[in-house]
């Protein structure tokens, strides 16, 4: 409640100032390409509200010490000044020397949450506490790092409309150890997600090969399909495609790989979806791609002026979805 009240206060000038600062930092630092070592010159530091209150307290202490002309009180005040400044250095050191090894962003569907992964390395002996990564439109993420460790930090972001979505800027900050200062740095990473159309639409899958019509898909595990070969399970393989029977016999987790007969592929054709708007068509195609992939079918996507060869698997699905996401963008 308090924070929302505060943020409304003078929000416009503050936003303008923040934007100007962001532009300045961008121009000053340029683009970052991981690995990025956080050097001192790109770490900014300012007192927090608690820090300002502490400064006021120290000033009153100084006045009291001078008013009473009391050496001991002044010494106390000076010791606290020293501790404050030490904490400022420590706060700066929470970021200084930290290494961003790699930054990745996952593609996602419009309106859903995407994820970016940041890999940090702390090659130093210090504990880095109170670290916070955030970015506009992202759910902030807190973490800390022990000496000599690496850490992956996930950051969820809200995907907008389909197309390319850039994460313009990440802010990494810490107000450890005392909360009197906040050090931060801005990272301008080449983070770009392709947002796929939101899967939607209830139209049935087009018939295989254009001639053989199958009303409904049949369960794979029923065993009456012919599969050509087995391959090891990889990330992203749907659980339904696992050859559980062979697994039960003691084999490793394998995936049945179908060599579909020629002509047994489904053509997901943009032009055949009459009566739908552009976005609805793309959503339906996206839904179909997902369905086909789940069924382990071979499929191809046809867009006006663009046609993807038939295939299946993660790479194929990705290529299809990207084509759909970027269509006419």
């Amino acid at each position, binding site marked *: 409640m308090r*924070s929302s009240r505060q943020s409304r206060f003078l929000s416009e000038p503050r936003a303008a100032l923040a934007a100007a600062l962001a532009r300045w930092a961008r121009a000053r630092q340029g683009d970052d390409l*991981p*690995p990025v070592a956080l050097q001192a010159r790109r770490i900014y530091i300012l007192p927090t509200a*608690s820090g300002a*209150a*502490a400064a006021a*307290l120290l000033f009153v*202490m100084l*006045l*009291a*010490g*001078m*008013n*009473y*002309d*009391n*050496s*001991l*009180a*002044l*010494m*106390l*005040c*000076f*010791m*606290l*000044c*020293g*501790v404050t*400044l*030490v*904490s400022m*250095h420590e706060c700066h*050191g929470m970021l*200084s020397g930290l290494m961003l*090894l*790699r930054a990745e962003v996952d593609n996602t569907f419009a309106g859903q949450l995407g994820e970016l*992964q940041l*890999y940090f390395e702390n*090659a*130093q*002996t210090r504990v880095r*506490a*109170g670290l*916070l990564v*955030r970015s506009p439109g992202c759910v*902030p*993420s*807190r*973490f800390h790092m022990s*000496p*000599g460790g*690496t850490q*992956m930090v*996930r950051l969820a972001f809200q995907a907008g409309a389909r197309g390319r979505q850039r994460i313009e800027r990440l802010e990494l900050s810490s*107000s*450890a*150890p*005392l*909360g009197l200062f906040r050090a931060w740095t801005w990272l301008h990473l080449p983070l770009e997600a392709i947002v796929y159309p939101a899967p939607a639409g209830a139209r049935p899958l087009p018939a295989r090969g254009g001639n053989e019509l199958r009303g409904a898909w049949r369960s794979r595990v029923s065993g009456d399909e012919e599969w050509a070969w087995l391959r090891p399970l990889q990330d992203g393989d749907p659980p339904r495609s696992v050859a559980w029977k062979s697994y039960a016999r003691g084999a490793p987790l394998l995936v049945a790989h179908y060599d579909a007969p020629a002509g047994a592929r489904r053509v997901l054709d943009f032009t055949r979806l009459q009566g739908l708007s552009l976005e609805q068509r793309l959503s339906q195609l996206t839904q179909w791609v997902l369905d086909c992939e789940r069924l382990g079918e071979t499929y191809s996507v046809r867009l006006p002026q663009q046609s993807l060869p038939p295939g299946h698997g993660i790479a194929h699905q990705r290529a299809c979805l990207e084509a759909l996401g970027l269509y006419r963008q």
Partner: protein
Amino acid sequence: MNARPVIADEPVLLPPQTVWLLLGGFLGAVLLNAHHTALWCLPLALAAVAWRARNLRKAPRLPARYLRIGVAGLLTLAVLVGFHTLNGVEAGSSLLVAMATLKLTETVRRRDWLIVLGAALFLLLAACLDRQALWLLPLYAAELWLLCGALYALGAGADAPPAAAMLRRSALSLAWALPFALLLFLFVPRLSGSFWAIPQPDQAFTGLGDEMSPGSISQLTQSGDAALRVRFDGALPPPAERYWRGPVLHDFDGYTWRRRRVDLGRAPVLQFHGPAYDYEITLEPNQHNILIALELPQGVPDTLPNAYPTFDYQLVAPAPVSRAVSYRLQSYLQHRTDEPLSAAARRLDLQLPPGRNPRSVELAHSLRAGADGDRAYIDAVLDYLRHGDFSYTLEPPLLNFDSVDDLLFRTREGFCGHYASAFVMLMRAGGVPARVVTGYLGGIWNRYGEYLYVTQSDAHAWAEVWLDGRGWVRIDPTAVVAPGRLTEELEDLLPAAATGHRRLLDSVWIVNAVQAWQGLNAWWQDEFIGFNFARQLGLLGLLGIRNHDLEALALLLAAGAGIWLAAIAWGLRPRAQPGAEDGLSRSWRALERKLRRLAAPRAAYECPTDYAARVGRAHPELSATLAALARRYARLRYGPAASAAQLEQFRRAVRLLRPRAG
């Protein structure tokens, strides 16, 4: 995965050790102030701390808002009633304890705890303002350490390390802060000035007062409190000449001597001769505004430009000496003047209360009749005291209203004050202007601090008489009655029973220990507590800086702060995590660095072979190479002991790898 959403200033549940640190720090601050805050402060704070400690693991339920406001109002009223003010150290710290205690009952958020910590720091300041004795320094330092530890623990929030780790950090931080604090201490200009009025504490100091009754000095000698410390630039005056001159008393009502506050104009100009003594006196707080000096001082100290000399050669400070003060003076032990005594001064120092002490007046007249001149009369009175069977005692019998008659003709037992009083009265009755001088006699040489240590037990009273053509002459009638008083310790003159507890100090090592401790205290008082603008300028002189001004101080301060900041940046610089890294590991890490742009770094759970396989899957062109390198690494690491040549070969193989980011 330890990422979680951020919550701005939500109620935090601090770990119990953090709450203990915070409560301990607060309680320590209250205890350090317990002696001068209102009586209810300590029990109130103890109750609040106990209540909060019971609710260690959960956020406490708050008392109703109107109740809290009501209690706050009541406590403020209690302070107002108790002290009649909210200003000043006592009232202020009482109020602070009250408000911080109330805040303690509603510590839910981090901000609440910060306020309690701030109050505790301020209470520590109040304690420093109130008492600066050396023995308190370790307590203050420990409290500061505790509070800083609490600050660190609070900063770490919900996942604070154990209290011991926080206290270690606090110690380290304070150690770094110390040089900076000393720098500020030495070079921040001490522009002492009153930004707001300070109520004077109505503390009773032991020491010489504005008046002297029979027995008042002997009461004083029971006290072992410090009166003053004197450092001499050169030789010390002989022990029998160490008269530390304080308030001069003129008015006599037959029983009590009082100071005269009227100014009778210029004092007769003195011609000094004999050796000069340069010395610095540190005067402990006392009740009057007389600056004690050796005999008759010359001039006014530089450090106290507002002090002024009076017609009876006292140095008067503009305000009562309510805190230790240091000043430099020069004195001669021998002086004379050819000027006549002014009529007003003669009248002042001859006046006697009419009708009082009739037998003494009679005695004076008879002695005067048999004496030829003032000098002969003085000798006659001293002879009377010497041969009249008078004795010296610390516990004289009570004297009645005509105190001099009672002493001379009934009790014949007295202390310095009694004899000085009787002698001056006899002088005045015989027509010789005379006055009582109170002060101190003697002092103990402290060889550790190299100063003369004068305590209240050295309090003394003597007389000054006017001789035409000679000026004021010091006469100590006690020296006639008890000749040892001038050269021996007071205790040696007195019955053992009166000073039994002091005999303990005869043991040599105890004397040494006490002297060393006193010396340390003196250093603390002079160099630390008494550090001021004048000493700052003196320090500049020591550093060889010519122009003693604020600019020089500011420059030194800036330079020192710069050096400290550089030192601390160096001291806190990032240090590489030392690992048991041999050449093989280094080579493998080089390989991982090369692959950093291609794939996610090797996770903690991945062995090199798995990692190579993963990267190889993403980048098939490297697959075979990486698999071979990983196999080779495993063989070198876990197989038969590898030769240097094999390790070198591996290093070169890694160097050959040229992955291109796809």
